[in-house]
């Protein structure tokens, strides 16, 4: 329990804080105990988990005793939970929960890969995780830019679809894959422009319109897909080269993960830094955050609230539209109906998990990308005890758990989703 908050006047206290610690603590303690029970009761004493650095040190293989490692990680999770129950200083809470989550996830991994015939191909999986985290990253960054200024962008899914569709179409028409990427960005921009217009000028409910815009994008892209299918060569797959950084690519682990990827990875990572810098170190960022928290105050300081929101939301479309191009161009796929499969919504959850902060978003996206990659890898290896459908559920289930359990009371920007009418002051 955070005792020091009790002395403040009740109206100012965030009463959820001690409750959340107790809940999170109980959850982690339970998860830790679960891991311990599995380690000793379910896993065989001689079971080992094989780890291989499959891209650089192809010969080396490392076997670890499953029970021992799982027990250590389970104890770590349970200890973190117990500490939270006993009372963690507020500023340590994030660190402790991060350690607990990581330990828990790794214990599950070690369990999953202890099946005979499965090998944890560390480098492929980590590189794949980074690549698979990109849609979450682009979508969530787009959400951050919108929501920090106070407009809820639930239409990321639709912007993805528009970007994915237009990217391939433009690439086919021009024959240039980079023109396709630009086309995807423009498509994203046009779809958020509609949201921006409705949210600022027409002051409509942003959640409702966002959902409708998703449906509209789904209907539009599916409709055009059927129509254009009749025409030859408008929806062929395009691929882009993998950029290899020469000798850097041969460094174990880091090389394959960071220095042998497609351009989307580098753009994504640079974008995190750029959005962070813009939000926290520039005048635009200060104004954006002010408008998202207290538009009336920002207005009285001379910021044109609705104009700033309009441009923020519109420009955020460039990011989510580019994220759409990931589905087709980065994966070397042609467009197919509803190919984004709800990832735009998961991106929204990533944004909440990342607490509307670009660095948090990066962490969240990586966790989700990692989960997705591991699920795919286990499913493909066939060594999994769990049916493939349940593995595919993982990102969604994790979203549900994270949104409900860990960050149930995550603080959105105060004016998020509230239309601002200068006449109402």
């Amino acid at each position: 329990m955070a005792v020091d908050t009790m002395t403040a006047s009740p109206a100012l206290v965030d009463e959820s804080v001690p409750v959340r610690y107790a809940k999170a603590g109980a959850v982690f303690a339970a998860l830790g105990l679960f891991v311990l029970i599995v380690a000793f009761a379910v896993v065989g004493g001689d079971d080992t988990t094989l780890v291989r650095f499959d891209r650089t040190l192809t010969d080396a293989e490392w076997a670890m005793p499953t029970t021992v490692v799982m027990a250590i990680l389970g104890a770590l999770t349970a200890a973190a939970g117990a500490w939270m129950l006993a009372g963690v200083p507020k500023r340590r809470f994030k660190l402790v929960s991060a350690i607990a989550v990581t330990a828990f996830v790794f214990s599950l991994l070690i369990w999953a890969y202890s099946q005979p015939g499965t090998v944890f191909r560390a480098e492929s999986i980590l590189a794949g995780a980074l690549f698979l985290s990109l849609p979450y990253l682009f979508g969530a960054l787009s959400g951050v830019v919108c929501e920090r200024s106070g407009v809820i962008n639930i239409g990321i899914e639709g912007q993805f679809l528009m970007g994915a569709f237009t990217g391939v179409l433009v690439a086919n028409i021009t024959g240039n894959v980079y023109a396709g990427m630009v086309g995807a960005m423009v498509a994203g921009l046009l779809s958020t422009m509609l949201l921006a217009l409705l949210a600022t000028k027409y002051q409509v409910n942003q959640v409702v319109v966002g959902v409708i815009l998703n449906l509209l994008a789904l209907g539009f892209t599916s409709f055009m897909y059927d129509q254009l299918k009749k025409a030859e060569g408008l929806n062929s797959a395009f691929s882009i080269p993998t950029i290899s950084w020469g000798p850097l690519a041969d460094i174990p682990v880091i090389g394959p993960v960071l220095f042998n990827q497609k351009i989307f990875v580098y753009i994504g990572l640079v974008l995190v830094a750029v959005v962070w810098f813009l939000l926290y170190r520039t005048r635009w960022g200060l104004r954006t955050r002010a408008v998202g928290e207290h538009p009336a105050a920002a207005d009285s300081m001379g910021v044109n609230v609705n104009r700033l929101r309009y441009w923020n939301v519109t420009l955020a479309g460039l990011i989510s539209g580019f994220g759409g191009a990931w589905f087709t161009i980065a994966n070397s796929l042609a467009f197919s109906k509803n190919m984004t499969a709800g990832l735009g919504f998961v991106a929204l959850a990533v944004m909440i998990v990342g607490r509307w902060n670009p660095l948090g978003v990066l962490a969240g996206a990586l966790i989700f990308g990692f989960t997705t990659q591991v699920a795919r890898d286990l499913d493909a290896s066939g060594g999994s005890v769990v049916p493939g459908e349940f593995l595919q559920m993982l990102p969604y289930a994790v979203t549900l758990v994270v949104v409900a359990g860990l960050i149930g009371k995550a603080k959105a920007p105060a004016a998020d989703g509230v239309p601002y009418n200068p006449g109402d002051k």
Partner: protein
Amino acid sequence: MSTDTKTPTADEPEAGETPESKPNFMRLFGRYLTEANSVMVTIYSLLLAFLIGAILLIVSDEYTRSTFSYFFSRPQDAWYASRDLIVESYTALFEGAILNLSTLDRYAAGTAEFGDLLRPLSETLTYATPLIFTGLAVGLAFRAGLFNIGAQGQLIFGMMGALIIGFALDLPAVIHLPLAVIAGALAGAAFGAVPGVLKATTGAHEVISSIMLNNIAALFLVWAISTEFLHSETKTDLITKPVDESAVMPKLLSGLSESLRVNWALLIGIGAAVFTWWLLSRSTFGFRIRAVGFNEHASATAGMRIGSTYTTTMAVAGGLAGLAGAALSLGVGSAGITTNTALEYGFDGITVALLGRAKPGGIVAAALLFGALKAGALSAQPDVPVDISTLLQATIVLFIAAPALVKAILHLRTPRGGLVTLEAKGW
């Protein structure tokens, strides 16, 4: 925060005509037509949506597009091609949904049965039936200020619940059918309550949690169909066992023709709409729903339990969506359900509820319209892309949700009470 919120707009309603202009019927009617009231916004939304659909049809059709390349030398080619395309496409939708004109000719000539004439209408009603339930599921939650995007998942669980009771038990039809329907409702209610509980206890936004549950339900269905318990014993593809004859929804018009698929679920749907109307406007629980939807803080101060209202509302909404699932697995899917049986009924429920403005009567009307669109689009494919129904639906509700946009496009007047829009809460 309520369902019907008056959005004040900058321009005041016009201060009336000059004193000597007496209000006569035509003047009032003309005034009504040019005003952004909810009836006219609905009508204009429909017209605008069909106009946009027409433009997209023209733009995306290769032949018609080619006539525009020499528009300035022979504009009549482009005009005739566009006109023919639009007339053909929308006629095809109409024939699939309401009345097939060639069947009418054959009926007049005596070569077709009366039942054949009713087939498009029967299809419309068949597709409208699940939409009534899912529309009510979304609309009811709307009244409590909740945005229930999870109708698709609730429907899937309702489908499985009804299916399991439908084939696993051996009972006379009088008990079996109602029991299977109730099982569907309960399964949907249990699944629907989850986002309500999560919101009540942890504050997790229902939009995110119900979207996740939709995805989970869809994957769960794929897995469940492949299990030995549910999978068909005779077929190898992904299809479940059929429900017993005693649990199949009787067809309404089987006396006219066996091919008319509309069944008793339609009547249950209308019953559910009446029930929802009663619940919302005549019961204490409905009062609580509306109060919480209108102002949760005031309701809490008045002693209402907000959390339990969220949970119960979502459970009832889930039950309604579950009934849609029961209607499917005991009706059109009674020979066994596939991953495709649920179509997009749950998501379409959102558009139905928005078009029906979260009122039971409006929802039934909206379900009929979108059912007609769906039936029309399915019968008109591949000449008309089947997704035109989704496209038209989304465009219609976009305008419904943003009346200010319709008002601006058509330069309508602001009605006396302001514009009426639907609301759901932010994070």
